[in-house]
């Protein structure tokens, strides 16, 4: 397949691995920010190809994993209402809330639907004027423009039966929190390519300067990741801390300006709680005042639902890159994809799910 096969080519991959081996002189801890990158790394065993001294740490970039349990509980409560058609990306349906997940709501008779785009929800809202259509708007900057567009369009079309439950998070404040943490052990970042497709690379420059940390915007295929790791190792070995762009076939320095404007016109920056991590200031998006009537949290007064969470899950440490998934005592025993303790074991982008799925035998490697 064009534009994919060349980035999965074993010979090219090995050339980058050789280059990394030649140039590395001391241990480096590199964090790939995005869960999609984590899955690619584990799926292709890229960390097994790298020299011992290049250590990959898995970052918090899994939108499903960091959506707070309170919000899952709210989603469950809203989805259970008889007048509601609740729409979501597929990933979110299996994430455990306090008492149920969204699949559970569906099995008890709730109208819960998987959609591929929030714009599909507008059609559903138009087709069902007697129903309230709610979309679970989760994700990083990547999904924000389409989610913003759905609200923008709903207002333009005068759709009064559409609203979104917002759980949008932003990458740079999370990196700031990781770098500011006393447990920090990250020497360099592989930034999430798709997020930068929207936002560009400029917002990473203050981070790189302030914390003296090199950042390379990376794609998702094995050759992308190995090339980006090579660029990062080279910067570290040369003592540089620049923002570089490996994923330049898609990412431009200024990003996608119309998409950014759309995000700004519909959303505003606010504090957000990250599941397993806590509240990070200015790390999320909420609807602006003029779109407040499209906010499902105010439209449906479900109050505070849910209760305290178990302490057995260490997903907070996994999401910050402090431990690897298999270093959690519950991994593969109390916590499996069938009976997940935390969202990192559920999502297609969760680090625990990647480890369980691709390598639970012979763990204990790097």
């Amino acid at each position: 397949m064009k534009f994919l096969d060349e980035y999965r080519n074993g010979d090219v991959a090995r050339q980058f691995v050789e280059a990394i081996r030649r140039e590395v002189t001391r241990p480096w801890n590199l964090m790939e920010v995005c869960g999609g990158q984590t899955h690619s790394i584990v799926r292709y065993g890229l960390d097994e190809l790298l020299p011992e001294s290049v250590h990959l740490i898995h970052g918090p970039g899994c939108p499903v994993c960091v959506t707070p349990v309170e919000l899952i509980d709210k989603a469950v409560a809203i989805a259970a209402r008889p007048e509601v058609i609740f729409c979501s990306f597929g990933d979110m349906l299996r994430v455990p809330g306090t008492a149920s997940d969204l699949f559970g709501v569906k099995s008890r008779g709730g109208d819960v639907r998987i959609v591929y785009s929030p714009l599909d929800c507008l059609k559903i809202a138009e087709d069902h004027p007697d129903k309230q259509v709610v979309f679970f708007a989760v994700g990083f900057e990547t999904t924000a423009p389409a989610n913003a567009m759905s609200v923008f369009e709903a207002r333009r079309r005068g759709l009064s039966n559409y609203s979104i439950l917002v759980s949008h998070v932003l990458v740079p404040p999370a990196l700031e929190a990781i770098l500011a943490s006393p447990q920090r052990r990250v020497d360099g970042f592989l930034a999430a390519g798709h997020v930068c497709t929207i936002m560009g690379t400029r917002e990473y420059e203050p981070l790189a300067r302030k914390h003296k940390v090199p950042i390379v915007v990376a794609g998702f295929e094995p050759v992308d990741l190995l090339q980006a790791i090579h660029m990062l190792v080279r910067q570290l070995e040369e003592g540089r801390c620049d923002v570089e762009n490996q994923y330049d076939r898609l990412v431009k320095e200024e990003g996608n300006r119309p998409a950014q404007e759309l995000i700004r016109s519909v959303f505003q920056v606010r504090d957000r709680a990250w599941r397993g991590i806590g509240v990070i200031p200015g790390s999320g998006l909420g609807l602006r005042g003029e779109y407040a009537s499209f906010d499902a949290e105010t439209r449906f007064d479900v109050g505070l639902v849910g209760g305290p969470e178990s302490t057995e899950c260490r997903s907070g440490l996994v999401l910050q890159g402090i431990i690897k998934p298999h270093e959690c005592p519950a991994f593969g025993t109390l916590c499996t994809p069938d009976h997940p303790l935390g969202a990192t074991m559920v999502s297609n982008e969760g680090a625990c799910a990647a480890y369980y799925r691709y390598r639970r035998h012979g763990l204990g490697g790097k």
Partner: protein
Amino acid sequence: MEFELNCPLPLRHDTIQLAHGGGGRIMRELLESVMLPAFSNEALDARHDSALLELGGARLAFTTDTYVVQPRFFPGGNIGELAVYGTVNDLAMGGARPQYLSVGMVLEEGYPIEELRRVVAAMREAAAACGVCFVTGDTKVVDRGKGDGIFINTAGIGLVPPGVDIGPHRVKPGDAILVSGDVGRHGIAVMSVREGLSFETPIESDCAPVHRLASALLEGGVEVHCLRDPTRGGLASVLNEIATDAHAGIEAVESDIPVAEGVAGACEMLGLDPFYVACEGRMVAFVPGDQAERALDLLRAVRGGEGAARIGTVTAEDPGTVFLRTTLGTKRILDLLSGEQLPRIC
């Protein structure tokens, strides 16, 4: 800044979830905790696609399957063809020559008779193409809203020729693993209609009978150890089932597994792994390693087997585990999925 470390309690299912029918680990758990203990006997416990029975000196294969596909008509097939081929294929996977079928239909009040005629005509043609006939049947109607148009159950029996012994118990280290063609077509064809996705080149289901592929191997003198047709859960689930039931390890080679370009592209877009996507007209065969080339020649000479390929080998290491050699030469687990695959967020 303080970090809270919290996560929810585990979730137990006390009601049936869709994932219980997804062909993954959750379904296996349901079978092992509810069905198998209740019905346990030697023929059932063999857990093959069809049960092998000795009756009055004859060896019969017996199987049943229920078809609830939505949409009922999809590119490359329909629910009627599936209901015939699925059962014929399960019989063939036991080494049997499929012969007689039964059919049970659950029809929903308001279902158009015109469509029923089309489904029945498709079943008649499919049965004729496979050399089988329906010898008994049943029809029930449920209230509107209590069904999904039409559900079809078929059961089938076939004769197993003397000397044929096929099943996971015969799989052993050194066996070659063959697949009769590219995988994942049916799942993507159905999903494309269900989700309103369109592709430049429409992807058609591989929906087809595979009994001629099986008999080509048997009549060609290949010592067939095991046969399976990958349906729900796809190729990866079949490999996992065999690895578990045969207490053997499996190593598959990613670059050797045929996947059509359109299927691969759709999977990339949706965030799905084609190895877990359903087929409805493919066969996986376990044969002695030194007979693999001959078996491939035999398969490729049969219609529907042109794309046959060797995709892996049975090993003595790590019984019960399927490993995949990636395109980069690294090795990873090819696991049984928990439930169904879900399209990802971004």
